[in-house]
């Protein structure tokens, strides 16, 4: 067999990207899309990826993944997290900076970026806004921006001090970077383990009120208006947060917002058995909030669905709510969960291409990883573009077996769930890193 390294044909699928939907085969050579048209001839020695009944999309882009390296490698590392991402259809993730040490210096950012070189997806890093994520002194944003960092956040904590956030936005504006905010006012949220409401009151669990998030959303919208800086709201969880962001967008402010698959799906009802798998920050909220987040996605008010993939080792979650850390896995289940929440009925009724926009090209733009920002993510699937692709079967039914996840941790809220829709092949810079649902390295 003659070998034509780097030549791949994705055959028989329907190509979906920001430019539209069409039946086409895709020829990939040397890491780049070479041709997109129906009935392509397969060059001798090319690898053929069957895409019958599948959609061929730009690879998914996650704005919010905790890869835990450095510092918590017992929970996850760049390699295992990137493998989970690739299996989930992602070709890029933004690694959150709440590592140990945090990504608040060029040296740590460089370390994580170097680990990402060998990963199964592109690993971009977010830098911390403040030194040590302590909320007081500005991190060296220019030094980090010079390494390509485009998104900064103290995620895991919100920047509590309005004065610090103002200065950070003013500084960031000059660098052309975006600040991601974990919206949570500690004065209202500290000590809470679940959404504050009727259920937390009944269960005797200290609550985190919706207002803890909403106050910071309101504050940062005001600061975005004041400074002209760009704010990206991480993992919004309440109806009123989203309404404020929609109003800010209508006003023309430079704000974007993401929601997570779990906030689009679950409510605080999941905590009634005190199962710490469902402890997450921000907390799972109410039916009304879930409905509002779904409606906000359908109405175009949300820019991205992001996983907030947060691995924790089993022993950490096998504990009372008050002792367990918040967070849940997401990379391997996000596509199916999002399709279920937002796609055709019984979801929010969105077209599948609009759901993919929230998982791929719109987050790519928020992260500055898209072609418009000189990046290689988010498509479109067109000749000359980088071959970062996800071939997904929207009808494939599968059951989530925690033991078979690629993540080093097992804390998936979907354990035992039957989901529909899964990445079949994932192509990273022309290389099929996932083939027929199996990671190739």
């Amino acid at each position: 067999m003659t070998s034509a390294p780097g030549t791949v044909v994705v055959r028989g699928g329907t190509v979906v990207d920001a430019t539209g939907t069409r039946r086409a085969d895709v020829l990939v050579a040397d890491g780049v899309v070479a041709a997109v048209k129906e009935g392509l001839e397969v060059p001798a020695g090319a690898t053929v990826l069957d895409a019958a009944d599948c959609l061929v999309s730009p690879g998914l882009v996650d704005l919010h993944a905790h890869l835990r390296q450095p510092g918590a490698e017992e929970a996850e590392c760049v390699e295992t997290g990137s493998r989970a991402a690739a299996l989930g259809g992602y070709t890029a993730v933004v690694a959150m900076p709440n590592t140990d040490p945090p990504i608040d210096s060029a040296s740590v950012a460089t370390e994580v970026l170097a680990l990402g070189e060998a990963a199964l997806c592109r690993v971009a890093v977010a830098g911390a806004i403040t030194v040590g994520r302590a909320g007081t002194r500005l991190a060296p944003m220019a030094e980090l921006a010079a390494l390509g960092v485009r998104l900064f956040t103290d995620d895991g904590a919100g920047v509590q001090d309005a004065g610090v956030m103002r200065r950070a936005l003013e500084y960031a504006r000059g660098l052309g970077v975006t600040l991601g905010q974990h919206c949570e006012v500690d004065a209202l949220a500290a000590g809470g383990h679940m959404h504050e409401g009727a259920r937390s009151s009944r269960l005797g669990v200290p609550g985190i009120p919706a207002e803890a998030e909403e106050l910071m959303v309101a504050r940062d919208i005001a600061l975005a208006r004041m400074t002209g800086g760009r704010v990206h709201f991480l993992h919004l969880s309440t109806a009123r947060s989203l309404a404020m962001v929609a109003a800010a967008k209508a006003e023309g402010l430079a704000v974007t917002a993401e929601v997570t698959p779990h906030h689009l799906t679950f409510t605080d009802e999941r905590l009634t058995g005190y199962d710490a798998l469902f402890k997450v920050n921000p907390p799972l909220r109410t039916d009304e909030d879930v409905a509002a987040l779904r409606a906000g996605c359908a109405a175009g008010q949300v820019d991205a669905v992001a996983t907030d993939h947060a691995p924790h080792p089993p022993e950490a979650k096998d504990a009372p709510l008050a002792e367990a850390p918040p967070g849940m896995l997401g990379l391997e289940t996000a596509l199916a969960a999002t399709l279920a929440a937002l796609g055709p009925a019984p979801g929010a009724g969105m077209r599948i291409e609009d759901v993919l926009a929230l998982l791929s090209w719109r987050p790519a733009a928020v992260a500055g990883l898209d072609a418009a920002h000189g990046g290689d993510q988010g498509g479109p699937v067109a000749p000359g573009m980088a071959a970062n692709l996800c071939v997904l079967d929207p009808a494939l039914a599968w059951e989530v077996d925690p033991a078979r996840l690629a993540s080093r941790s097992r804390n998936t809220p979907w354990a035992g769930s039957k989901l529909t829709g899964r990445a079949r092949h994932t192509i990273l810079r022309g290389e099929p890193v996932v083939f027929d649902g199996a990671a190739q390295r």
Partner: protein
Amino acid sequence: MSAGPLAELSATPAPSAPARAGTAGPSPAPTPPRGLAGARHLLSMADLDAGGIEEVLRVADHLGEVVHRSIPRVQALRGRTVVSLFAEESTRTRMSFETAARRMSADVLTFNAATSSVKKGESLRDTVETVAAMGVDAFVVRHPAAGAPALVSRWVDAHVVNAGDGWHEHPTQALLDCYTIRQVRAEADGVPLPSAGVGCFAGLRVGIVGDVRHSRVARSLVLALGTLGAQVTLIAPGTLLPPSPAGWPVAAVSSDLDPVLPELDVVYLLRLQLERGTGEYLPSAREYTAGFGLTARRAACLRPGAVIMHAGPMNRGVEIAAEVADAAGSAVLRQVTNGVAVRMAVLYLLLTGEEALGADELGRSLGVAGA
């Protein structure tokens, strides 16, 4: 708050509508009997319906008699092992449970997690599984985190009794409180206790006063009294009310004690954690006492025969005046006494399971044994 009119409000099944005392109508087919005999655990008062509560109280009537014997011990749990696993100090509750178990000849192991391996970093699960491996029939669990007993119940095969978890529940306290109310009412009505049902709770006006927000006692008591058909009013400053009492079986919520007080058949005072009165929840303990303390002046406004209760330990001079605590209407010491009998009943019913004798049968059995 964004908690709107949710259809499925309560964590555990909502307390059943007040059952009419004495009528044991057929329950809906899929609902299992909600009593303790044959049950695995007592985690929440929502685990018991009115019949289940009555069963515990009536079994306690008979087991309580044991206390008055020259040798206050029966063989009911001989050969069984009960572990009291206290991850939070509570000498009173622990002693009450351990006394109850010993009076029925159970072996008692005391695991004081506050001073043992848990302090060395062992997880609760490892601790519990290690103890369970020694061969244990029941765990009595006190823990500072809500839900810990529910987790323990999933990790071991033994029975689990919630002896207080965080702000969540303290079901045996609610049961002993119900026992005490029923006892006082029966005496007032001249009814011999073993034949008293739970009819006395229908329409009974109970005020629960104080730190409801942080009180496991209040949560269990509200459920129990709701199940039994009492009319409960929660009375507290706004900071000490739960964020949302939606779905709680209470008739009213108030921040003004004085107008409510003359209407009450039972006034139940919750302990004020004194650190709450340092400016965060309350301007001062003094201001709390001025508004919500059961002073002698306020006690004089109570109806004749009204019962004064407190889960203890009391802050005399804060939530209750010393002379009120010691007055004729105070049932505080009865609560302590009854705690042992009620905990005997809970352990007996759970541990003997389907073989548990009914209250009447048990009475005859103990009568013979004691003869």
